[in-house]
């Protein structure tokens, strides 16, 4: 049995070595994805375009604007003098928000009156709008605080802030979303390359008819599937090394945890993904169909359902259940735990168990389908 598995694994490696085009795709495509997604998907909102309608033109209004633009969050793109222009500016997307300082703002401030500053936000992208609003709230609060302490200081009273919230974000200190996304991205890249490569390799044998010769040999479908899997495990591991290295160089993604744990869990995930690929091959007859099913079945769930981009907790309960169909969901948690937190197996043994279960079920299913197809 070992000899037969070795024969098929060796054969597969030799074929792969000659298929330079496939090898090129297998290694360059992941890097490309990493760079594109890594730089493009960034949920931190910076450089919000802001237009100001300053009806007060006072020291305070200018000071407030300065406090906004001194961060990288807001960029002042211009001033307007006419209230009627606001709509036009937002419609034409010349700015994402317009700030209106009322007449007499300064006067009211020093008369101990409450002042209302207006901000009009382009609400088309709800996510960004919320972020802008939050930033703005924060800016208003801190400005108010400064103002109060100034007033009190003038009156000779020393002020202090009773309670202050110091947000400390564990594991991802500067809350950069890229940092948080990369593990999900790695999971997605690995599952796509694994599923596509192995399913194509098996279906190619169906198309060319070489599978007939294997079917008539004493090779069992189990041996054949294991033999086919080994070379792709090696390839996928190499891809993992490439991505982790690139992730470290480009995005400073660390590996805080145990390397050995990382290797074992990655192997498990690759094995689960390859089994998904084998399953795809057992239901497709041509490489074209296999490619389509493979990309859909690997890419969609691992982007939408894995928690990679959309948090699972905020999905409706039935969808939350559905998220279990993708092993990426579990590997992503493991990767975040190992890479970013550096914690041990006690934190993610359930996810590991799930990956084992997932592989076993799929391998069983594909072996069964392979056997059944002989009935014709």
């Amino acid at each position, binding site marked *: 049995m070992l000899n037969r598995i070795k024969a098929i694994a*060796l054969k597969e490696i030799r074929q792969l070595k000659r298929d330079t085009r496939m090898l090129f795709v297998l290694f360059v495509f992941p890097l490309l994805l990493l760079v594109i997604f890594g730089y493009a998907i960034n949920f931190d909102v910076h450089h919000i375009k802001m237009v100001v309608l300053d009806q007060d033109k006072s020291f305070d209004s200018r000071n407030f604007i300065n406090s906004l633009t001194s961060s990288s969050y807001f960029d002042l793109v211009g001033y307007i003098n006419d209230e009627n222009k606001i709509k036009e500016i937002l419609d034409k997307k010349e700015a994402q928000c317009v700030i209106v300082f009322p007449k007499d703002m300064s006067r009211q401030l020093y008369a101990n009156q409450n002042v209302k500053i207006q901000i009009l936000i382009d609400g088309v992208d709800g996510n960004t709008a919320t972020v802008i609003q939050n930033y703005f709230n924060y800016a208003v609060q801190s400005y108010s605080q400064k103002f109060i302490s100034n007033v009190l200081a003038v009156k000779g009273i020393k002020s202090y802030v009773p309670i202050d919230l110091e947000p400390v974000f564990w594991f991802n200190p500067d809350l950069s979303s890229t940092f948080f996304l990369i593990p999900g991205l790695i999971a997605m890249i690995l599952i796509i390359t694994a599923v596509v490569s192995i399913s194509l390799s098996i279906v190619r044998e169906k198309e060319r008819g*070489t599978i007939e010769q294997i079917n008539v*040999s004493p090779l069992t479908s189990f041996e054949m599937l294991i033999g086919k899997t080994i070379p792709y495990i090696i390839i996928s591991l190499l891809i993992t090394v490439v991505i982790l290295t690139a992730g470290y160089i480009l995005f400073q993604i660390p590996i805080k945890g145990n390397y050995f744990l990382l290797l074992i869990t990655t192997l498990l995930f690759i094995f689960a993904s390859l089994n998904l690929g084998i399953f795809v091959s057992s239901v497709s007859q041509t490489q074209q169909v296999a490619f389509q099913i493979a990309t859909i079945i690997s890419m969609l769930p691992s982007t939408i359902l894995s928690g990679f981009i959309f948090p699972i907790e905020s999905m409706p309960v039935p969808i939350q259940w559905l998220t279990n169909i993708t092993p990426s969901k579990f590997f992503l948690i493991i990767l975040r735990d190992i890479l970013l937190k550096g914690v041990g197996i006690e934190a993610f043994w359930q996810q590991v168990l799930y990956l084992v279960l997932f592989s076993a079920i799929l391998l069983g299913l594909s072996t069964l389908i392979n056997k059944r197809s002989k009935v*014709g």
Partner: protein
Amino acid sequence: MSLSSQKGNMNSIEVKNLTKKFGSFTAVDGISFNVKEGEIFGFLGANGAGKSTAIRILCGIIEPTSGDAIVGGYSVMNEPDKVKLNIGYMSQKFSLYNDLTVEENINFFGGVYGLIKNKLEDRKKWVLKVAYLEGKEKLLTKDLPGGIKQRLALAIAVIHEPKIVFLDEPTGGVDPISRRNFWELINELSHKGITVFVTTHYLDEAEYCNSITLINAGKIIASGTSKELKTKYLTNTMLEVECDRVVEALDIFSKQDWVEETSIFGNYIHISVEDENSARSLAEKTLKENNIKIIRMDKIVPTLEDVFIYLLEKDTKKNVK
């Protein structure tokens, strides 16, 4: 095994009422036959007759819908895995890996059949010799000429020295000289005692077979040696006519009630008739009426092709009724 163990009389394949349905379509329809040990068994039929389907059942690749076959002593229904160990198979599609070298193909299939070390080296030498590829092990299989590829495929199909080998249209798309060489190789295997089960489209190749079985629409319509087939089924006389305007003449003959079958062979027409003498005069008279000149008219021994055309037409007419 049920039959006497006297060499040459033992059956290496016994097929009993084998049927294969794909949905409601019956590809193989209750066929039964025996193949003797060491013989070359020709399985003939038109496209879609069910040849490949039958072979794939006998090789244990697909399960029959009903019936059974004993191949090399094992039932394809109950012990397909044991069947597989004892047979070689060359599928209709070219079955080697084009993107592997000659040697890599040999190593792979040798490995799959559990050949190692010395045994593998021995068999590798034999395969290379048989395929005329000694010293060319590093060539990519896709770069080999068609005839050589075919020899390599056959040699690899028997790399594990099985008792029985199934060849599904092994000479498809190969030039005539390579075909003849290929049949010499088949003969060699048969002399070594290997049973060869072969399907082909080429009727001249059927002459090389010890025993021939003809199937049509999944059913056996004739079987025997080539000589038996020519005498047993065709009781009529076969006349070969050489004349002008062959196509027109063929058309005229096929409308005559004294002509049973017509077929065209290059510039000649073959007609099958019951009585030679009356047919000769009727043929001359009819063609003369149509201003077609007869150059020559001879009684001939029917070829296998004549027999098959006759049998196929008869069977097809029966099926239509």
